[in-house]
């Protein structure tokens, strides 16, 4: 394409053809810069999926701190049976085989992340649920009701037993390996916009200090846009910071458009100018659309209570998830929601696990159960993939007398919707929840699965100079794909 051609493209064409929404603006700007072409044939995102997608949107629920897999989605009664015994005194002594433990990397030193050998009994009961009969702990009754929608992966493993593993889950690489784009950033980079009035990659909830960015080498325009659940001020700079009447603004906006357009006389064929004008139109639309997303006045009381908005313990997270559903409804591509960030993460129950998990489960269970039900009843679950994840599990053994330590050798995440099978369990840990034993999956296998459902081939999104390894791409978990 030469510059003449660029000027023939209208902005609409530009966005429609690229289908990239905000990303395309960032790109448009760069037209002005030197076109030093590396051989990138076949590498450039067109905004179109590489093959037919089964899902359009992603909801990325992340529980910071490390949820105990045994006390949530992978119950292990043997812990109770052998409670108080050291692992070597039980029939599961072979879990301590140093070879099996060797996947753990050099750790960032802190007092945690050590193996705990004395088995700690389950702190909560569990039951079979739904037609699938999948066992879920009693801390998650609302999610349990939706169990027939879930695809559980009970055989996750990772390599670093400190909370830097959070970035590992988001990006495939541990915090200490450097900074790598998160999955949401890759999706934003690779796929088009579904709705030009809203940012396409949104982050809700406080983020850990090591996890504040997404785009990294893809560029800051692929960072998630933070959204606050506050109709008055949901978006940074979303409303005038000083009183400024709507009428005055619109006179100004009209004039601005005229003046910018008039510049094209002196500067014909200037794609930057065009992109700038388009960015203002988008911004005005965003400014109008975003507050509406977090305005729940039109939601029924039934919906509100479905998300737990009427309960003090679940109201906060419920509002986040209700806003998420509204975003998804309006076609936002990727919403990541953090629960319990701050310090090491709310779920980090080194002590008083029972109290900790009771409280956290109360905060998230009803909203998540409600979200699944609501998405499904609105027919959105088929094309929306929901992920429930955490950086690692917790040790089968006790830390202190009431807690569990970080555990990388086996843990659980689950997904729902987005063209995945419903009501299935994939993979397993051994009987004390120590090692993932069947169908083991590294964290990027989740990425690969999501990318596949979105119709993306991550290998086609490679950036020169940033060679990605096999482990970064992962392998999709085809067994759970419907």
């Amino acid at each position, binding site marked *: *394409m*030469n*510059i*003449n051609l660029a000027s023939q493209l209208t902005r609409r064409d530009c966005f429609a053809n690229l289908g990239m929404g*905000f990303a395309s*603006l*960032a790109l*448009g*700007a*760069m037209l*002005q810069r*030197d*076109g*030093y072409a*590396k*051989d*990138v*044939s*076949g*590498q*450039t995102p067109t905004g179109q999926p590489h093959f037919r997608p089964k899902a359009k949107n992603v909801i990325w629920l992340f529980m910071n701190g490390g949820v105990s897999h045994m006390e949530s989605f992978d119950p292990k009664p043997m812990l109770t049976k052998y409670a108080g015994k050291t692992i070597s005194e039980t029939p599961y002594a072979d879990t301590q085989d140093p070879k099996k433990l060797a996947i753990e990397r050099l*750790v960032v*030193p802190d007092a945690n992340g050590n193996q705990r050998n004395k088995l700690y009994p389950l702190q909560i009961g569990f039951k079979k649920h739904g037609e699938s009969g999948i066992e879920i702990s009693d801390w998650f009754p609302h999610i349990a009701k939706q169990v027939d929608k879930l695809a559980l992966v009970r055989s996750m493993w990772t390599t670093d037993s400190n909370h830097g593993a959070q970035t590992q889950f988001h990006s495939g690489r541990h915090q*200490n390996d450097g900074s790598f784009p998160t999955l949401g950033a890759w999706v934003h980079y690779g796929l088009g916009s579904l709705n030009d009035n809203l940012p396409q990659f949104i982050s809700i909830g406080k983020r850990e*200090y090591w996890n*504040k960015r997404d785009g990294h080498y893809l*560029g*800051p325009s692929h960072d998630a*846009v933070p959204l606050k659940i506050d109709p008055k001020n949901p978006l*940074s*700079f979303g409303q*005038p*910071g*000083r009183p*400024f009447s709507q009428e*005055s603004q619109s*006179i*100004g906006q*009209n*004039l*601005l458009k*005229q*003046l*910018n357009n*008039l*510049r094209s006389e*002196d*500067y*014909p064929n*200037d794609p*930057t100018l065009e992109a*700038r004008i388009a*960015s203002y139109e*988008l911004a005005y639309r965003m*400014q109008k659309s975003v507050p509406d997303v977090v305005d729940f006045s039109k939601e029924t009381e039934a919906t509100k209570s479905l998300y737990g908005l009427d309960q003090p313990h679940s109201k906060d997270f419920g509002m986040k998830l209700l806003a998420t559903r509204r975003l998804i409804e309006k076609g936002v591509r990727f919403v990541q929601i953090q629960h319990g960030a701050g310090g090491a993460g709310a779920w980090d129950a080194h002590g008083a696990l029972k109290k900790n998990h009771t409280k956290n489960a109360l905060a998230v269970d009803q909203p998540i159960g409600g979200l699944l039900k609501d998405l499904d009843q609105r027919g959105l679950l088929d094309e929306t993939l929901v992920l429930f994840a955490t950086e690692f599990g917790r040790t089968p053994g006790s830390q202190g007398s009431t807690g569990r330590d970080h555990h990388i050798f086996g843990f659980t995440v689950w997904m729902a919707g987005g063209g995945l099978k419903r009501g299935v369990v994939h993979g397993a840990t051994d009987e004390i929840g120590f090692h993932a034993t069947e169908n083991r999956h590294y964290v990027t296998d989740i990425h690969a699965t999501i990318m596949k459902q979105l119709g993306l081939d991550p290998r086609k999104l*490679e950036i*020169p*100079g*940033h*060679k990605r390894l096999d482990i970064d791409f992962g392998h999709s978990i085809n067994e759970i794909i419907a």
Partner: protein
Amino acid sequence: MSKKLLPFLLIAFAYCASGLSSQINAADKHPDYLKQIKPILRKGCYSCHGSLKQEGDLRLDTVTLMIKGGAITRGKVDESPLLERVSAKDIDERMPPEHEGEPFSAEQISLIRSWIKEGALAPEDEKPESDPKDHWAFKPIIRPSVEKLAWGTNAIDSFIAKKHKEHGLVPQAEASRLILIRRLYIDLIGMPPSPEEISEFENDQTSGAYGKIVKRLLDDPRYGERWGRHWMDIWRYSDWWGLGQQLRKSQKHIWHWRDWIVESLNDNMPYDEMVRLMLAADELYPNDSNKIRATGYLARNYFLFNRPQWMEETVEHVSKGFLGLTMNCAKCHDHKYDPIKHSDFYKLRAFFEPYHVRLDLVPGELDFKKDGIPRIFDGLPDTPTYRYVRGDEKNPDKSTLIKPGFPEFLAFKELNIKPVSLPVESWQPERRPGILELYEKNAGDKVEAAEKKLLKALQKLIAARKQKLEAVDQTKPKPVTKPKTETIAKTKTEAVTKKKPETAKPETAKPVAKQDPLQEAIDKAQQELIVAEYELDLARVEQDSVKKRVVALRAKWSGAKQKSERKKIEAAIRAEREVTLAISRIALAKVELKLLTAKGKKDKIQKELKKAEDELKKSEKNIAAPIGKDDSFTTLAGARWTPTRFFNSTKDDPTVKFPKQSTGRRTELAKWITDRRNPLTARVAVNHIWTRHMGKPFVPSIFDFGRNGDSPTHPELLDWLASELIESGWNMKHLHQLIVNSSVYRMGSSVAQRSSNLSKDSENKYWWRRVPIRIESQVVRDSILTQAGTLDLTMGGPPVIPNKQATSKRRGLYFFHSNNARNLFLTTFDEALVKSCYRRDQSIVPQQALALSNSKLVLDSKKQIAERLSKGTASDLEFIQKSFTVMLGIKANQQEIDSSLKAMKEWRKIPDSTENDARAHFIWVLINHNDFVTLR
């Protein structure tokens, strides 16, 4: 369209092994060698079987060489071992070998098979890969001769004009004076010119007017701030970050390094000297604290937890930033494109292996939390460097010790590392002038403060007693006089007699069953007075201890006779024991106070009380204990090592001491980098500088001048400028002057009237027009404040912390900026990524529109700007014209004026709107105008 777009995004990113797959169509029965086969082989085989290396004496970079080496036989698939090796199932047989590259896909193998079968056709004139030594950037810089000027102002233009001629391009005309002055101001000092400066330049039609401004701006201290920020991008400036208050990355007070950068640029310190100081000022000028600030460059790489990562970052960015080499690609294996061996990465690391970070006290501040200069020193000179097998830090090859060294192809000078003996002030930093005096002064200040506190406590007690007295007999007239000195003295004596805990205890334990709040207040004040009394005691014994330690230290340093020295040391030890005792007393008094005021259960406090009493007994015992032969006192520190936690413990690693000698390794490295024979350093520096003036580099792969990087668009000009830089004594202002005075710099950026160029060079590779620049984040903000007249030009000092930034009017470069703490407004305009920012992004996203439309910064400034520009402009017409000129560098045309006037009228129609409102709204429009954030 998209194919053209992507490279822009990519430029800013690292080039390493690029792993690009070429378009393959397996269905194609007649594979094309150049298009389909050669790219596969280049990617998979050349790094070991090409000009870089010839493993097994085999080269595969031409078909002739393939046949000669026996890798293929034309038309005979069975007699082509290449095919066999790339399709081998056995991992030991397969090519590329494990860890050396991805195996060929079935499609690729089938293409190669078909191609061999069809006779391995290839162009006859196929040339082998050139020798890495002949790579342009690895060859010495030779000053090219300057041809006679065909166009332009100075030598730069002669090189530019040559390319114009070659490609039949007509250069764009010089930009308007209005644009030129805006360009110069923003480029050189990062702020737009004032209305007065604009009209002065417009009225000065003499030929020297432009040059005069250039000179003036280069002498302006704001130049150092503007270009300082550029170099801070390249050199990875970052304020500290970590978890909560725990320092994990970079350094506290790293701003000293930033100030050094700004000051050095303003002093026009030569580039080579700046590089030397950043790498080795501690060895080159061990007694010059000002120069040692430069080593913040290396202190910034500090990482609390992991040494290999710290070292890796250091090697990576020293090579990328100064040399344009991607040494990091050799961390795990030999470099795939450049003649850099796996061990070369570790040889470079070995230069840095001994260094650690410490904070040096600065005059006037003893609290390292508040200030101190972060600097480096060779703390562990004997730490060995090993090569990590495949880059795995868990797998060092301990069979071979890696010594510092240069890659062979750049070994233009002998390695000559000489250890540096450091002056005593360097390894005993408390001996620097003023440090001991500062400790003494500080101790005196503390005594004074404690005295004041005691007086306050006394007054409080007196007041409490007075209240009680008044309550007891309210009929009596109220005494209004201040407490007399006798009263104070008496009370004080009382308090002091309660010094012994034994006496204090019964009183505190006394049940306060009566619940008399006035009596309670007296009891509390009494106890507080005791604490204050103890604190004064502590301050006094601390002062005494400091004094005695100063005496002892001076005796030690003066080489006093053993006996008298030991006596002084013993006195210092005793004084310190007194301090410990005084601390125990306070601790006890505080627990007692707590007990007195506590409500409810007191079991826990009783326990604490017991502990404090035991502690006190211990201290008392210690006072009387004899002093051992090897006992010593705590020295008065002049610097503090920044602790690391490399080992899996929750504690700081063992203290790294300050050795008397530095290894001299970094000095030698710095000399090698800044040696005029180094072919890379000056070229890389010129490319950095040119890019920032011109908006576009000579070598787009800005940190990769290697064989996988890009070729320069103007190799001769690059070399000429590199020679100029070196021969002028690495004089950066000389280079700035040359560039901004050139005609290529002064061209207009429009394509208007030059459409014939578009078909010949649509990408403007040959500079037939200027490239517009979306101004950097800091410049956007600074420009708004400049126009509003509110910019605070205070230079230097600690950064503005995040929660003060909303109200601060300091320049953007002074804002606290780390990986985690970023200013939202600046971030919106592509703030520098601290981890690596060799070039800023220039995105256009709606968030920028929102920030310029809605931020308080803009909405507050629009009124102030309107007021400033209203001065001397009676009519709206004049105001509009002036605003266009000053805000955008545009002479408004009729249509622009008409539209603006119309909008003004509409604003005025809004009820309650004032004259000023309409003008402020108009300014708001201009801040949002494309040309406000664009350097035309």
